């Protein structure tokens, strides 16, 4: 019985992913992050797997994937709600939580895993020497990026189901991303000007992949730093699931 429900949820996720991964938008974004990531790996003197992953994804990849999530996840989920497709999904013989989970898998996990993984795969093929010595570290850093980007994806999905309007949700999602990035910059500057180590560590913790990068490179971090973004992700996920379960009403 449970297997049948899981199979149906996966079937719904696969069905919905045809919208998330539809060409040419997805292909163009995949080409941009992969080609730019590969080029960044090719021009930089990489020497370790964690540094290689950061060199490929940190400057361009995070921004590009977040933008994609704001367009396809946020706007896409709101479009599902406004056109009545989400109500059709909810009419399937699945619980609301299973539909919400299937939507997260197709709208957040699959695009994040693909868009963050493709440039790392290209870099691993172009600079095998940087990766082969620490494949585990490379994969761990990739997972850190997936967690970080999933936090944005889940939050965008929450904004989308709450607003139910494609325009409002994509603008709200972009505003949230800018606010988060701006807060990081403000905290970093405040930490320098006030000489506060706590503010500096808080700013560092906001970029989860930098904290994990430090940990994997053997640098010391505060115990709470690696928990900040996963904690925010858990809160965001709980809010999204609770909203879909108890509060969501078709527009």
């Amino acid at each position, binding site marked *: 019985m449970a297997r049948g429900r899981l199979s149906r949820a996966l079937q719904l996720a696969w069905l919905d992913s045809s919208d998330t991964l539809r060409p040419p938008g997805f292909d163009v974004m995949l080409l941009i992050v992969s080609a730019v990531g*590969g080029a960044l790996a090719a021009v930089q003197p990489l020497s370790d797997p964690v540094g290689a992953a950061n060199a490929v994804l940190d400057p361009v990849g995070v921004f590009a994937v977040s933008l994609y999530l704001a367009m396809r996840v946020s706007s896409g989920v709101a479009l599902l709600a406004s056109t009545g497709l989400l109500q059709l999904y909810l009419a399937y013989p699945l619980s609301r939580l299973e539909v919400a989970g299937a939507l997260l898998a197709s709208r957040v996990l699959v695009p994040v895993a693909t868009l963050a993984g493709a440039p790392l795969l290209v870099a691993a093929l172009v600079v095998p020497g940087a990766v082969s010595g620490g494949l585990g570290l490379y994969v761990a850093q990739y997972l850190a990026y997936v967690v970080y980007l999933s936090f944005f994806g889940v939050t965008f999905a929450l904004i989308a189901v709450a607003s139910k309007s494609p325009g409002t949700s994509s603008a709200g999602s972009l505003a949230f991303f800018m606010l988060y990035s701006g807060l990081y910059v403000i905290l970093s500057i405040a930490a320098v000007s006030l000489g506060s180590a706590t503010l500096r560590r808080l700013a560092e913790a906001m970029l989860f992949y930098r904290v994990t990068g430090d940990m994997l490179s053997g640098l010391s971090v505060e115990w709470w730093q690696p928990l900040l973004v996963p904690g925010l992700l858990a809160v965001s996920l709980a809010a999204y699931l609770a909203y879909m379960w108890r509060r969501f009403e078709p527009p």
Partner: protein
Amino acid sequence: MTSAGGLAGRILLVLGVSIFVASIVGALVGPKPAVGEEGTLVPGRGEVVGLLVWAQSAPGNVSVEVKGAAGVYYAKLRGDPLSYLSNATSFGVRVGEVEARRDVRGGVFLASAKLKVDLFTLNFALKRLNKTTGDTLSMSLRLGESLVVVVLPAQPGEPLTYRLSFHSRIAERLPPIDAGLEGVALAAVGAALLWRSKIKTRGAPQPSRRVESRCPWRLGASRSSWR
């Protein structure tokens, strides 16, 4: 709805093109294992010469050769050597002219500087540095480490010639031709998969955004599996 073969084909095609692009970029401006520079500095009265090497992006071996010096002192640090020299509390000198550059192709930051320093501070600072026996200094730098070299001129106004070189231990990379061929092969496999999936779905209903098209039994799943 997207077929699995078509999706795999699209992804492989994109990956292949990306690898091809990366190999071309790498061939044009890829990192080189050795970088270096040489030059002449004429320190004035009350000035010493600073030479800085920072293994900013790759570990490696550094070699510094100075001619015409009364003494060559050095320290191995972690992080930006310029900020170390600029920080009066740690070294007590004022950095004058700095000609610094970060060689992107080698991932290393090389710099030469004239440092204004009074004798008392200098004597105090030099006690915290190591002194070389000859005029050549070679050592290994780990990623992020830097080397600060302070050169005392034999006479003020007498030119000092120096040579800095850095051989980085960057990760082994695929030769651009091999990477390019790999990309072309991957793109060809992707294109073949995509073409095959197009042929298989020719005549089949195209994906629609209409509500009815989202009913799973219209998309291949058996109706009984949804009951």
